[in-house]
């Protein structure tokens, strides 16, 4: 399981592709917007986006005449869920620690 996923995430081994992904993690952008801020051609950006999309790391949708790319929210949803459970657990322990100190 882990290795299959690792292979999918190998899409991010390419440094330019990683930069593209990091840009999209901050903000949804079109090919043109990405190309304007990167030292690579627009067709190269398109190719990187195709690889990222095939790996399930980004999604795209039409916005008028342009196509906007964003990070696939599922790629971070598990992280959010895990931290959500973790903080429930940690904050309950925090509450118990404060109140225990009150009793003693």
């Amino acid at each position, binding site marked *: 399981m882990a290795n299959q996923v690792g292979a999918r995430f190998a899409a991010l081994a390419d440094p330019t592709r990683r930069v593209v992904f990091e840009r999209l993690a901050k903000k949804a952008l079109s090919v043109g917007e990405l190309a304007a801020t990167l030292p690579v051609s627009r067709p190269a950006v398109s190719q990187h986006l195709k690889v990222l999309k095939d790996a399930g*790391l980004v999604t795209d949708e039409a916005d008028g005449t342009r196509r906007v790319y964003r990070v696939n929210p599922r790629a971070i949803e598990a992280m959010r*869920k895990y931290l959500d459970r*973790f903080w429930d657990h940690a904050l309950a322990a925090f*509450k118990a620690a404060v109140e225990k100190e009150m009793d003693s």
Partner: protein
Amino acid sequence: MMTIRKQLTIEAPVERAFRVFTDNMSAWWPKTHHIGKAAMRECLIEPRVNGRWYEVGEDGSTCEWGKVLAWEPPRRLVLAWQLNAEFKYDPDLITEVEVRFSVLGPKRTQVDFEHRDLERFGAAAEPLSKQMDEGWGQIIQSFAQTAAG
């Protein structure tokens, strides 16, 4: 923006709640959740803006977790959580943990907790094929499964 929010009420004065959260974090932080190779002895917050947030292992080794962004005792604390999706310290990554303490009564405090900017973890999704451990490692596994699903 992707954010986790929690609210809880604590039967204690606001000063005490703030102090236990910051000065006595080791008393309540789940010992299973740390990043050092050695078992965790304690986790510490230096009480000032730009103070370190870090763990100390049983062998005396230290591991950074992040830093203090806002230090306003006893009402507000903002920490930079600088662990990426692989639970490695990354000085270039900042997700914010804000905790607000409000007085509900002389011995009652409301805690509003927020862990925000989680979308920034997206940039750290790369090293999923590495070995997974218990504790923090679980997240990588579920992260990987969801991303693959």
